[in-house]
C-alpha cells in the first residue's frame, strides 16, 4: 500500500533531518512508529502526505483502485485526490477552533467535495449523520454542537480521530493519537485503530511500547532520521534502551509477566 524509499530531508544549512528512511506498509498491517523526540517521526509522516517536500527519495502510495501514486512528484490537484484516501491524525490535532465538533469531523472529507459545493451549501445531511456516527465511535456524540476550542485535550484528540475515521480512508496516518488520553481511552482508541487496520492499514506514532506490543502487528523505530529497527512489535528492553539512547539506561526496565513491557517512556508532545 505504501512504500517509502530512501527518504532524505536536508535543511539548507546542511543539517540532516531524515537520512535515508525506507520501509513499507501492506494492507491489513498496524505499524507502530517509535523513537525519541526529534527523531523525525512526524517529519516522515509529513513527507508521506506531501506536506513537506523531501530532498530526495520516493513515496509510493497505492490507492484502492489499484493505481500507484508517486507522492513526491504529484501536483497540488493530484495530491488532493490522493489525500482523499489517507486519513490523518496530527500530533497537534489541528482542529479549527471556531468550528463545531461536527464541522471539524466533516472537514475530513473535503478532498472528495467540490470547492464550489463547499461555498454554495456546505455539507449534506447524510454527511452530518455519518460524522455523528464517527463521533459515536469515540464516545464524543454529546459534544457534536460544541465549538472545538472549548474541549479538553483528550476530547480534541478523539475529535481528530473521528475526523480521520469519518473519511473512510484506505490508509491511516496517526501521529501520537493517544498521547493526551487516559489509559482507558487510550486502550479504546488502540482497539479502534487495530480494528480499522484489519481492512485498511495504519501507520501510527506511539510513545508507549506496551501499547505497541499489545496492538501493533509490526514496529518501526526511527532514531536520528534513520530506521534502526523494523520487525516484531515486542521489542526487547535492551533494544528499546538502545533506541531511546543513554538517558534511559539508568531507568529500570522491567518486564511484567514476561510479556508486557511497563510503560517506561514519558509521552512527550
Amino acid at each position: 500500500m505504501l512504500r517509502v524509499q530512501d527518504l532524505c530531508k536536508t535543511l539548507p544549512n546542511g543539517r540532516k533531518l531524515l537520512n535515508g528512511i525506507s520501509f513499507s506498509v501492506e494492507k491489513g498491517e498496524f505499524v507502530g512508529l517509535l523513537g525519541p523526540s526529534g527523531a523525525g517521526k512526524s517529519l516522515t509522516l509529513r513527507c508521506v502526505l506531501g506536506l513537506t517536500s523531501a530532498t530526495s527519495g520516493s513515496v509510493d502510495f497505492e490507492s484502492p483502485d489499484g493505481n500507484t501514486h508517486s507522492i513526491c512528484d504529484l501536483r497540488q490537484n493530484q495530491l488532493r485526490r490522493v489525500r482523499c484516501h489517507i486519513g490523518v491524525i496530527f500530533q497537534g490535532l489541528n482542529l479549527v477552533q471556531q468550528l463545531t465538533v461536527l464541522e471539524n469531523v466533516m472537514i475530513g472529507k473535503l478532498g472528495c467535495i467540490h470547492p464550489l459545493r463547499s461555498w454554495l451549501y456546505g455539507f449534506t445531511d447524510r454527511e452530518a449523520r455519518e460524522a455523528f456516527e464517527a463521533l459515536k465511535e469515540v464516545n464524543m456524540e454529546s459534544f457534536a454542537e460544541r465549538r472545538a476550542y472549548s474541549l479538553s485535550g483528550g476530547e480534541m484528540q478523539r475529535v481528530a480521530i473521528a475526523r480521520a475515521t469519518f473519511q473512510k480512508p484506505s490508509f491511516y496516518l496517526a501521529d501520537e493519537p493517544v498521547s493526551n488520553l487516559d489509559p482507558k481511552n487510550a486502550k479504546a482508541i488502540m482497539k479502534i485503530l487495530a480494528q480499522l487496520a484489519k481492512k485498511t492499514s495504519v501507520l501510527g506514532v506511539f510513545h508507549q511500547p506496551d501499547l505497541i506490543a499489545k496492538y501493533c502487528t509490526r514496529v518501526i523505530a526511527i532514531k536520528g532520521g534513520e530506521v534502526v529497527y523494523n520487525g516484531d512489535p515486542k521489542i526487547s528492553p535492551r533494544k528499546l534502551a538502545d533506541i531511546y539512547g543513554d538517558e534511559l539506561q539508568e531507568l529500570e526496565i522491567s518486564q511484567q509477566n514476561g510479556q508486557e513491557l511497563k510503560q517506561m517512556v514519558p509521552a512527550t508532545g
Partner: protein
Amino acid sequence: MSVLSEYSPKRYLKVSLFLTVMAIAVYFAMKACRVDLASMFESLFTNGDVYLRFIDLDWSTLWHMVKAAAVTVLLAALATPLAACLSIIVAIAGARNISKPWFRLPARISLGLERALPDTVVLFVFIAAFGLGVFPAVFALALGSLGMLGKLWADGIEEVDDKSLEAIRANGGSLWQSIRYGIIPQVMPAIISNSIFRFEVNVRAATVLGGLAGVGIGYELSRAYSLLEYGRMGMAILVIVVVVHLCERFSGFARGKLLISGGLE
C-alpha cells in the same frame, strides 16, 4: 536581566527626559506658529454671548434636521458594507499565507496608498467625477474604510492558526476550501466586529464628508453657519450629538452581543 532593569531608577530618568524634550518642542512650535495664549483666552470669553445664541435652539427645524441626519447615517450604512465586502477580497489577495507574491504586493501597496490618501482628497476626486450628492460621499467613505479594514483583515488572515489550515490541506481540501472552513470561521468574528465599529466611525466621517458633498446633516450645519443662523446651527449640533451617540451605543451593544454569541470569551 533586562526585565529587572526596567524597574531601576533609570527608567524614571528616561521618562522625565522625554517629558522635558516634549515641553521644549511644544514651546518652540507655539513660537513658530505665533500662538498667543493670552489673546486666545481673551477672545474665548469676551464673545460669550455667541454661545447664548447657540443655546437659543430653533425647534421648528427639528424634523428637518432629523431627516438630514438620517441621510448621513444612511451614507455610512451604505459605505460600510460596501467597504467590508471589497476589503475581504483585497485582504485575501494580500495575506501572505494564502496568496501569491504577485497578488500580495499589488494588494498591499494599493491598501497602503489608499490609507495615505486623506478622505477629503478622495471625496473631491469623486465629486469631480459624479458631481455633488450622495454617490461621491458614499464612495469616499467606502474607499476610506477599505484601506483600513483591508489591512486589518489581511493581517488577521496572516495570524490564523496555520496548523488547522494544514489539517484541511492534508484532508484534501483546496485553497478555497481552506478559506471557507479554516480562515472565514477564524476571522469572521473580528470582521463583523470591526465593520460595526467602522460604521460608527463612518457616521462621524459622513457628517463632514457629506457636508462637503452637499448632503446630510453636515451640509445643514455648514449652510446654517454661512447664513449665521445660530439657532439652526445649535439644532443641527444637538441632532448630530444625539445621533452619533445613538450609533455608538448601537455599535457597542451589537459588538458585545457578537462577542458573546461568537464565543470569543
